[in-house]
């Protein structure tokens, strides 16, 4: 019994974001006023070769909020979210237009250090992708090594990130096991912990729960809610209930023959109760898509 209460204490201690380790890589402290202004997309278009995949999306992501992107498959949600941290340009033949402002500065401005942008705007992918050659612990800290950041207190940081991703209790005894030895849901939470270790200002999540069981999904939703106090979150989801549960704002995307567009954005409660656009209503009530 005694060790259990010890654990409880520890978790409480970790939950307060004042520990040394949370003054991470780029010197910001989560939970303080360093949230910034947030992220703003201004007239974003995206192409794959000649294929115009996304047209004229303008959307604000105020600091400390959770925004859900919903819409049928192929409407450009992934394409859009990847323009937000400059992962779109990773695809050969890709092109874009428009601006993405982080704290008022365009991340596409010539001369911008793209690796710094991606440090500030982290990403969790649809399919869990822990690094196979690294242990669980190494996976969590891999961002520090990749970006060549210094951190004096690696063990504390590792523990804090795993606690915040809701994975600590499950892996604390096997930090030296391989990432691949975890279940799909645990792997995805490991990927979230990995993204948290470099202390991003914004976290982009592209259908993070689509490959997971309901239990893991709930854990990740709880994680998202806790994280939203210290960072700005954008999440793509196909699950209406999930959007309703975790997000403050919702944006509905649709590709109607042409390129994908953003049809409507509003407070989540409004999108689900009284959407302005007929097409949004049809989608959220399950009449198509």
């Amino acid at each position, binding site marked *: 019994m005694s060790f259990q209460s010890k654990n409880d204490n520890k978790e409480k201690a970790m939950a307060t974001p004042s520990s040394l380790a949370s003054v991470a890589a780029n010197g910001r402290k989560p939970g303080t006023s360093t949230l910034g202004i947030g992220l703003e997309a201004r007239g974003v278009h995206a192409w794959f070769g000649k294929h115009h995949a996304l047209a004229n999306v303008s959307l604000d992501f105020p600091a400390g909020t959770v925004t859900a992107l919903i819409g049928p498959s192929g409407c450009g949600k992934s394409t859009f979210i990847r323009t937000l*941290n400059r*992962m779109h340009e*990773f695809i*050969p033949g890709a092109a874009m237009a428009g601006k993405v402002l982080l704290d008022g500065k365009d991340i596409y401005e010539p001369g911008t250090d793209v*690796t*710094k942008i*991606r*440090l500030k705007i*982290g*990403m969790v*992918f649809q*399919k869990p*992708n822990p*690094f*196979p*050659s*690294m242990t669980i612990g190494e996976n969590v800290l*891999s*961002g520090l*090594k*990749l*970006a*060549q950041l210094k951190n004096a207190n690696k063990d504390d940081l590792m523990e804090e990130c795993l606690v915040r991703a809701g994975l600590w209790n499950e892996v604390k005894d096997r930090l030296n096991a*391989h990432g691949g030895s975890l279940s799909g849901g645990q792997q995805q939470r490991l*990927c979230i912990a*990995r*993204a948290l270790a*470099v202390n991003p200002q914004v976290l982009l999540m592209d259908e993070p729960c689509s490959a997971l069981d309901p239990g893991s999904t709930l854990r990740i939703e709880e994680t998202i809610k806790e994280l939203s106090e210290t960072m700005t979150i954008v999440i793509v989801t196909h699950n209406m209930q999930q959007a309703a549960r975790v997000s403050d704002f919702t944006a509905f995307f649709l590709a109607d023959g042409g390129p994908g567009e953003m049809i409507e954005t509003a407070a989540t409660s409004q999108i689900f109760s009284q959407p302005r656009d007929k097409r949004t209503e049809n989608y959220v009530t399950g009449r198509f898509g």
Partner: protein
Amino acid sequence: MTQSYVIPKPSRPWRPSPREKGLNIGLLLASVVTSYALVALTEMKGKLAYFFVFFAALALFNMARGLITKDWMNGRDQFFSVIMLLGMTIVILPTASILYTVFDRGRKGLHAGLLTNDMALATPSDPITSGGLLHAIVGTFLLVAVALIVSLPIGILTALYLTEIKGRFTRPIRFLVQAMSGVPSIVAGLFILSSVVYTVTKSYSGLVGSLALTILMIPTIARTAEEVLNLIPNDLREAGVALGGTQWRTVAMVVIPAARSGLITALILGVARIVGETAPMLLLTGGGDAVNINPTQGAMGSLPFYIWKSFLLGTEESITRGWAGLLVLLVLVLSLFLMARFLGSRRTK
């Protein structure tokens, strides 16, 4: 806990029944008998006749069984299974025969000093127990090591260019690598002879031999490494870049470690490709009889050269030496392939 059923005996209904097994053996025996009978009664003669009549009879009998017990489709199926068995035997028999011959004849050339003496004070026609092939083993190891030091970085960098950078020259470079992997070893040897030995060094040495081996080794390493790197999912590269890594740090920290065991396989296949090469050794290394550990100077022995020289002399002793050399080389190559399979199939770490 009440149990409402009786646990049945586990069975494997998909396995052949004893009756079918008996029939299989019967058909096998019938084919053997047929082959003996036909060879005795007709003009056909020799081992080859037994071999082919046996397989023809087995195929026909099995087809007949399929036709009778099932249908035409099954008969055809049975016929072709036997034909495939024939194909497999044709592939395996010569290989097994080569291995057997080398082990059988090489055995006679083995003696206590084989791996510890060189031929500095012996000639190949001396009694078997004098001299040895230490110089050849040392030479082969040095030649391969130098070739490896040059080829490994070049081969892997080429593969990285083809898979990670995917630059403008991807197609011509891939074409060049493929064409290079077809270069005959004597061409590589002549190329180094005319471009390096005649113009620069003006003498034989292990180093120039290694250079020729490098030409043969780079394409093998580059192609194998390219295939291995292509198997690494793109997700991992994206994850690395999304965490704020540059492309090169992502390649170094994520892609290469993930491909590690495959890259080791590429290395070993590269070594296995060159370790038995003879032509460049004849042209370039001078093939000394004494141990020489300096690749930049003097004649350097090697296993293929030792084998060639021993067979060339043609006395009984020297030929036995040649077989012993072959045995050592074969064991070396086989252990390399086994190592490649072992390391390649093992999960990383």
